[in-house]
């Protein structure tokens, strides 16, 4: 076991872990933030997507120790206190959430996309979300929510 400092949503969590542990497992167990989901556990579905220094990674297949002392953002870090992030508000309004299992991962990929590209085309949204599978919605409403958020953020940055 080794002591590793994980900085999640701006808070530092010292965790005592085996070096082979995956990041999603440590986030859910030791850190106690269960918004990050584990679907396939095999780098295929994107339910485990978190941001590492602002860029999306599949946390199910990333060693927690490799994320030490870097900036990790999970879905819990999106909202501003009680106020939902515009992506969260828009994905609900658009009907882009059914079972909700893919939603945290979708939101993290979408957040990183809008951060680098504030005005993405539908094609660019599809590429940005290409590592996230959704078994319920058929994607159209999720894409609509990302587009609505881009419009909203561009009008009132």
């Amino acid at each position, binding site marked *: 076991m080794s002591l590793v400092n994980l900085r999640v949503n701006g808070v530092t969590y010292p965790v005592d872990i085996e070096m082979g542990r*995956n990041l999603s497992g440590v986030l859910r167990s030791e850190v106690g933030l269960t918004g990050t989901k584990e679907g396939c556990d095999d780098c295929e579905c994107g339910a485990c997507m978190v941001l590492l220094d602002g*860029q999306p990674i599949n946390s199910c297949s*990333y060693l927690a120790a*490799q994320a030490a002392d870097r900036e990790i953002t999970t879905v819990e870090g999106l909202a501003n206190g009680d106020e939902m992030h515009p992506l969260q508000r828009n994905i609900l309004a658009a009907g882009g959430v059914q079972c909700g299992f893919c939603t945290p991962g979708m939101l993290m*990929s979408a957040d990183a996309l809008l951060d680098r590209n504030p005005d993405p085309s539908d094609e660019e949204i599809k590429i*940005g979300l290409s*590592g996230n599978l959704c078994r319920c919605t058929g994607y159209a409403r999720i894409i609509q929510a990302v587009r609505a958020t881009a419009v909203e953020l561009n009008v009132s940055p």
Partner: protein
Amino acid sequence: MSMTIASSVDEVLAAMAAGAQPIAGGTDLVVGARAGKAPLPEVLVAVDRVPELATVEVGDTSTRIGSGVTHAQLMEDVAVVHRFTAIADAAALVGSPATRNVGTLGGNVMNGSPAMDTGAPLVVLGAEAELTTTNGSRRVSMNELWVGPGRTSAAADEFCTALVIPNPPAASGSAYVRLEYRRAMEIAVVGAAAAVTLDGDSIASVRVALTAVAPTILEVAGLDALVGTSYHEPEMELVATAAGEQATPISDLRASDAYRRHTIGVMARRAVEAAVRRAQGEQISVPVNRALGIGAAS
């Protein structure tokens, strides 16, 4: 199990001399371990925080791409996109944004899969791998490096510090295309890279290499007949036939050997066509698969 996080190449080399195995993005190593392919090595050295490995340096005669450069960097780096476009084409097809953010060129090359997307581009561009230990460096051609599926000729303590590629002459272009069944998170069914230099309207030199049709990346031999031509139908047919004849594909659940042998010809002739167009100065955006509607439909 133990892991150190290196902050310099010297630290990486010292750890490897003491028996550690490198981990960069972990998109092959960790994913393979979790899928039960092979357990994680007992001693790891993380190499993803070594700044000197993450740079592209354009020299007078050659360009040095650090092994730690990620696919996300490769697809947008101006020097790579302009001079070594086939590598950018390949990097842009790897996995998803998440895979490309952490997956590295060095990891792709040293993992040695015959389906690796950056492999065929590196071969046609004449790249060499720089392998380094605490005792110094040597350079090997890509075909000396890959000796079988998942196997390289590098010793256990040899770290790939960079890929070194000669700067192409004027009027050169390259391209990488792949056949895929969907547009993301996909492995090449087959793929082909081409690098072309023109002399006026005609081909001065051409190299073609193939992905996922042999135990390692396969360079197509016998394309000398193309030199001096301007690449019309008979030459396209020659490329397709040579690629199909030299390929030794397997059948698996993704495709039969016969299907791979046929489609590799189609991919090879399209790769050369795109490389010729780029050599003529046409701007075809990266990845050429999307720009020309090759591969899977949206």
